């Protein structure tokens, strides 16, 4: 565990950053935003890898590997579909720029 005060400081600051960022997002982009935020919490993969890396019996390792597969789907899939959605916005804005 980290030092309690440090953790609390980081936590509170991150909460405010999270509030600030989203209050400015255009409602046009709510779906990609939800999907993008969704991809970011796929970083739990990092936790799953650490846990699997110190697993010392088969059962623990198997559960950790399941967690890795699930987290990878979240992380990789999340960024890919967000990119696909956003690509459609950008592709079109280039088109209309040419007109």
């Amino acid at each position, binding site marked *: 565990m980290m030092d309690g005060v440090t953790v609390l400081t980081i936590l509170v600051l991150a909460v405010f950053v999270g509030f600030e960022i989203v209050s400015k997002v255009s409602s046009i982009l709510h779906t990609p935003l939800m999907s993008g935020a969704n991809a970011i919490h796929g970083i739990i993969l990092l936790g799953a890898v650490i846990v699997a890396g110190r697993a010392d019996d088969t059962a623990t390792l198997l559960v950790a590997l399941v967690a890795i597969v699930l987290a990878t789907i979240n992380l990789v*899939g999340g960024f890919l579909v967000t990119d696909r959605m956003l690509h459609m*916005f950008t592709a079109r804005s280039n088109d209309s720029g040419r007109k």
Partner: protein
Amino acid sequence: MTLISADWAAALYLAAAVCFILALKGLSSPRQARRGNLLGALGAAVAMVTVFLSTDLDNLAAILIAIAAGTLIAVPVSRRVKMTQMPQLVALFNGVGGGAAALVGLLELDHAAEVGSSLAIAFTILIGAVSFAGSCVTFAKLQELMTTRPIVFPGARWVMILVTALAVTSVVAVAVTASMPLAITLLVLGLIAGAMLVLPVGGADVPIVISLLNAFTGLAVASSGLVLGNILLLVAGTLVGASGTILTRAMAAAMGRSVAGILFGAFKGGSSAGSTAIATDRPVRSATAEDVAILLGYAQRLIVIPGYGLAVAQAQHTLAELTVALEARGVEVLYGIHPVAGRMPGHMNVLLAEANVPYESLLELDDANSRLKTADVALIVGANDVVNPAAKNSPGSPIFGMPILDVAGAKSVIFLKRSMRPGFAGIENELLFEPQTTLLFGDAKETLSKVLSAVKRT
């Protein structure tokens, strides 16, 4: 033996956290959004490389194989999914993330040294499991594997109270005893609670639940960061938890509902207002596709109001073609997008972008309402509740207070509808009986292509 020191690793994790913040910030403008998302992916890649270089990992081959397997599942699914199915895919990705967090928590229990750690672990397990089960039920509802209507059984409320009480007790018990059987019980309780949370939510409110569960998974990840002593997990999870909470509230406000009302409304009973719909034989004016084509062809300004029905009928491409044909005749075509049009907030924008409608012609609520006052025609495709004046005029109505697109100012209003059936909220729409309203019945895609060919002929 590790390749980089703990200090370097901390610096790289910080860089990844900054990438995540910039990624979310980038999403505030359509032009920077894609770059923002790529920056987020870069941050994730940096973090993953860092963990491999800075941590002494056993079972390396198995870990890499598991990552490869996850990637092999995720890539084709993400490439092939239709834009209309996006909400359920987001729900599914969210669920697996929550599941992963719960499992990480469970496995860390043996390493927990103090009550604080065990408490964070118990929290991770509970929230992760709620998010996983809730997202699975959400997915099933959106994919229509089960009914989209609220599911309430007698005594559901008491079961929910009981499960919640047991879960809270187990959290305390796991924190104190760090017992594995108790932790597994907690996991199961979390799964039950997650399913029970979403089952009574009706189809129209499901998007808000996705957003809420997204915030939940964020919190579970943040808490797992506490458990593992990893700042990046803490920061990333908290960012998602905080932004998800704000987004959920914004969406609920756009529908004129409260988050608590959505989650617990069905338990109280009487939340679904199906009974208020009066079966009427009042006269309405219906027209043919040719009549509509003439009305549209001679308009100067047309505002299209697309709704959920458009997405169901997959008619967004036909609508876009019609727009192009009308613009060629000199008609100014704009789209009025209600914040909750489609199956999740902002979904309609994605569907229209896919059909190559430029985002400059998509108007947000306030902008659309000021333009509607000077519009010749308002064309409503597969929408109903978002234009229902009952939200403004009848305080007893379940949608009272929801901001609507006010089409009353337009010279004529054309409704493309499947039938006279009321919309999702089950409320009669007075607008249908107004003198300036014309109705064209049928499947949105079929009627739109009829109108399109009629426009091309005239």
